[in-house]
């Protein structure tokens, strides 16, 4: 019998026992479990790998704990700019977007590009226009606001530094 399997990630960085509280650790684990098991259930019912990865990533994009979709970090300009990609191993078809704003689930836009476009990668305003033409859901700027992400940005916005998903500022303090 063919094995089915799914794996997910929610970002990497300076994540140690000292940087997470027990409450945070429980919340992260619950979110990961929900996403991976939703994808696995779909596979177990005979769903495709492409549908399973799209579903799992959509769930993670809706979770503010992770830097994607709703939980996206702030740019230098105080905005949210998102990138995403999706690829099918059977057909080698791919869809990707870069620098889009206001798209609720960028991974759904990549699926539309994969299936309904002759292109592989769209960016910026053009990608958003494509999203509107294909009824991809948008969300207001307030949807992407997260107090923790805002605080992270405040610590570095007057510098030329940029930070990875889960990187703590350990030695530098910015007044």
């Amino acid at each position, binding site marked *: 019998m063919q094995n089915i*399997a799914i794996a997910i*990630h929610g970002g990497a960085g300076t994540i140690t026992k000292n940087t997470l509280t027990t409450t945070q650790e429980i919340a992260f684990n619950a979110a990961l*479990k929900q996403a*991976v098991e939703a994808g696995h259930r779909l596979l177990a019912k005979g769903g495709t790998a*492409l549908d399973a990865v799209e579903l799992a990533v959509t769930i993670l994009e809706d979770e503010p704990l992770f830097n994607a979709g709703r939980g996206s970090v*702030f740019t230098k300009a105080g905005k949210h700019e998102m990138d995403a990609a999706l690829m099918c191993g059977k057909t080698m078809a791919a869809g990707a977007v870069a620098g889009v704003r206001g798209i609720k689930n960028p991974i759904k836009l990549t699926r539309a590009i994969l299936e309904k476009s002759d292109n592989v990668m769209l960016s910026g305003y053009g990608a958003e226009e494509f999203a509107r033409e294909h009824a991809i859901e948008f969300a207001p700027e307030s949807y992407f606001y997260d107090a923790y992400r805002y605080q992270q940005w405040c610590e570095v916005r007057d510098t030329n530094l940029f930070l990875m998903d889960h990187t703590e500022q350990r030695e530098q303090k910015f007044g």
Partner: protein
Amino acid sequence: TVGAVAVDSAGNVAAATSTGGMTNKNFNRIGDTPIIGAGTYANNATCAVSCTGHGEFFIRSVVAYDISCLIEYKGYTLQEACEEVVLNKLIKIGGEGGLIAVNPAGDIALTFNSEGMYRACKRNDEQTILGIYKN
């Protein structure tokens, strides 16, 4: 960044990655995520890969495709290929991060060189595996 890789009951693999980029990024910077072959790649002949980490290093090393190539041309196992790229090649150039990968046989690799990576996997009826920290 978030990502997923999967293999279905027909033996087809797929990969997906999504990100908000880096805090305080400027000049419409994009990372490896949307670049096919760097941060996301899937090929039924080899594997599916989704990356996370310092994107510039993943772009320069064409990480996801590199793993596929090691399997296709050098006969590496999925785990060997992931470790070669993440724990050897990337570290040498200072690239921090990790990846998840799956192959059509249902093997899974969760490999990272940072202090932690939020991760989870489930195969067949086996128990769900969750992880955050190294080890």
